[in-house]
């Protein structure tokens, strides 16, 4: 057991080194999302794949899908930057499909409210997105909306729950140092039928 302390120090040094390696050029909020001690970079993120208006709509959508509600949401975590970054690096699943989906979204918004999605009120945006999100309400002849919703939702989840903010939201317990393999604390309740009331 004598060399345990030294080994733990080695591990902690490695963790620190990995954190320092986490700086990539161009990002503003994403980097902020990783390192809470830093201020967000000045200026706005310049999208590398999507047009500024497409990018803005994506940013709004990510915030609707995972909002700030006591804990930070997708916009605070810079998820739209991550989506644009992937698209710019050849993620074919979100290049043209995302573009076409954004066009569908604006078309539905114009038809229903006379303005593109990004110009609608939060309530109107919520309503338009709900059309795509709930299968029962979606027009039968328009599967494109549903496909787009699943796509933007999937990439929002990917971006959010791999950010520091998202992992903190889940309280991800990995990449910490434990001295023994963690054991179930609920002795006397093997079936876990009598746990304290849920926190969430």
């Amino acid at each position, binding site marked *: *057991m004598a*060399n*345990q302390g030294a*080994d*733990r120090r080695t*591990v902690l040094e*490695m*963790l620190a080194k*990995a954190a320092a*390696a*986490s700086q*990539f050029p161009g990002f503003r909020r*994403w980097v902020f*999302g*990783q390192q809470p001690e830093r201020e967000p970079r000045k200026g706005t993120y310049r999208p590398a794949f999507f047009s500024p208006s497409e990018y803005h709509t994506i940013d709004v959508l990510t915030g609707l*899908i995972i*909002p700030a509600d006591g804990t930070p949401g997708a916009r605070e975590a810079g998820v739209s930057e991550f989506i644009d*970054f*992937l698209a710019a*690096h*050849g*993620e074919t699943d979100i290049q043209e499909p995302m573009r076409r989906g954004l066009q569908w979204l604006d078309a539905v918004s114009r038809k229903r409210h006379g303005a593109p999605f990004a110009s609608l009120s939060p309530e109107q945006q*919520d309503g338009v997105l709900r059309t795509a*999100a*709930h299968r029962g309400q979606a027009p039968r002849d328009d599967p494109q909306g549903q496909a787009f*919703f699943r796509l933007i*939702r*999937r990439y929002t*989840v*990917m971006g959010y*729950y791999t*950010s*520091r903010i998202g*992992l903190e*939201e*889940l*309280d*991800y*317990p*990995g*990449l*910490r*140092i*434990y*001295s*023994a*393999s*963690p*054991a*179930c604390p*609920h002795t006397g309740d*093997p*079936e*876990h*039928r009598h*746990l304290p*009331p*849920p*926190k*969430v």
Partner: protein
Amino acid sequence: MPDRIYDVIVIGTGAGGGMAIHALCQAGAKVCALNASRRLKPSRDFRNHRQPFDMPFRGFGDPVKRKNWIGYMDNEYTEGIWEHEIIFTKAPGTEWTWRRCFAVGGKTNFWGRSSARFGDIDFRAASRDGYDVDWPVTYAEMAPYYSRVERMIGVASTVQKRPSNPDGEYLPPMNFRCIDRILESGARKVAIPYLPDRIAQLTVPHAGHPSCHYCANCTEGCDVGAFFSTPWFFLPAAERTGNLDLRTNALCRHILVDENGRAKGVAYVDRVTRREVEVYGRAVVLAASCVESARIVLNSKSRQWPDGIANSSGQAGRNLCDHLYGTTARGYFPQLLGQPSFPDNVSASTVAWMPRWQNLENPRQEEFIRGYSVYPDGGCAEFPWYFEEIEGFGREFKRAIKRRYPTPVSFYIQAPTQRSDANFVDIDPQVKDAYGIPAARLHFAWDRNTLLMWEHGKQACEQLLRASGAEYLGAAAEPDMPGTSLHETGTLRMGNDPKRFVTNRFGQAHDVGNLYVCDASVFPNCTDKTTTLSILAFTLRTAEHLIENLKQG
């Protein structure tokens, strides 16, 4: 005259090669080890302590590079480690996925660590149910080697007295998590064993190696060496003896023979200079892993061995077996909804297992022969993959993801195929790898017996989930692709009859007395257990047999 003749040339540095190198160097033999790729540097190559946001693509990988990646382990954490250049081919109709690590240490750098002994239920299976052949060894013979290996590498578990699984010498077991306690209770109701796995992962410091710190990313490589791998456990000690010459990027082309057809050395390609090099030895140990070793044998053609060295039986490459892997059930525990997160996954899921419980007393009790094992998985993971099962968006969606976080549970089956004439490796007559070496070609399909196990496993795991109070969400539509397990066995099987087997009970080629095989290719079949511990035990025995033979000249 060659300027140097080594005592032994060892091809490969994984579980078999690493153990052979270690044992031979300790015994004073001069060893030249050939490894087909580079050395890994843990501080640079193992990115296991990085958070997803420490990498540009969050672990999902560069979208362009990702298209060429193989399987789930070929990812942003282990980029640049898996082999892509030394290709293999598949016969029409064969599906096979294969992420091979040719770096020094081979797959021991990233293995799953489950380490159960084989027993007489495996070695004498043919006597019990009449299918195929018994192994040419008994458990009583192998037990001391298993004990020595367990002492060297450190295996955490408990004494379980299971008829399918001989007990060994164990470090303290991993503790059971909430999901284990729940499943253990459910398993009792449906008479399925639910026990601590046998894990080559150090729960206490052992043999000069630190104990596990439970960071959760073992399968990205361990940068402190808290689970067994040959670069952490064997190769440094072997190098300290001064008896080891380890040559990297040395891709074996074929084994050289003398005028009597005995092995006299190895011809390899230096992958850096692309030059061909010959190295000579008194004996050759082949430990390149099951399929690659068969490829080397079949490519080692000479006047004396027109069908490949030591292949007078014609069995080299035949009898390929594999483990069927697949998700037999998944669901979630409502009783854990909304509970605080818990470090469930910090040992990368090798906490518990459900060791074979079928066909124990009566070998023909089930519709299938032999048996399978199951590994449970679940709890708080790094990524909420279950999100697709939740509808909607917004606050409710975010809250539902958080509520479900501690609850997921799933099962993964490990079901052995049985030998058949249809499953084998040969040499592709047309295709060569980047170095001009003819490629291995795989012929493989699941057999009916294995698919019956898969169906049985799906039913059993659904019952277990329901008995545990879980919501059952289904099973995978079909098993994972063949090759996923990396547990290929049987291309250079051991047996007593030289007409039917390539190697004898010591892994020594029947035809060529100074050629030994130290990997899972010598195993007559693949059992319900993982292969690494047994590769180590059989290799230790083979290496000592070889040392005796060297002493006798």
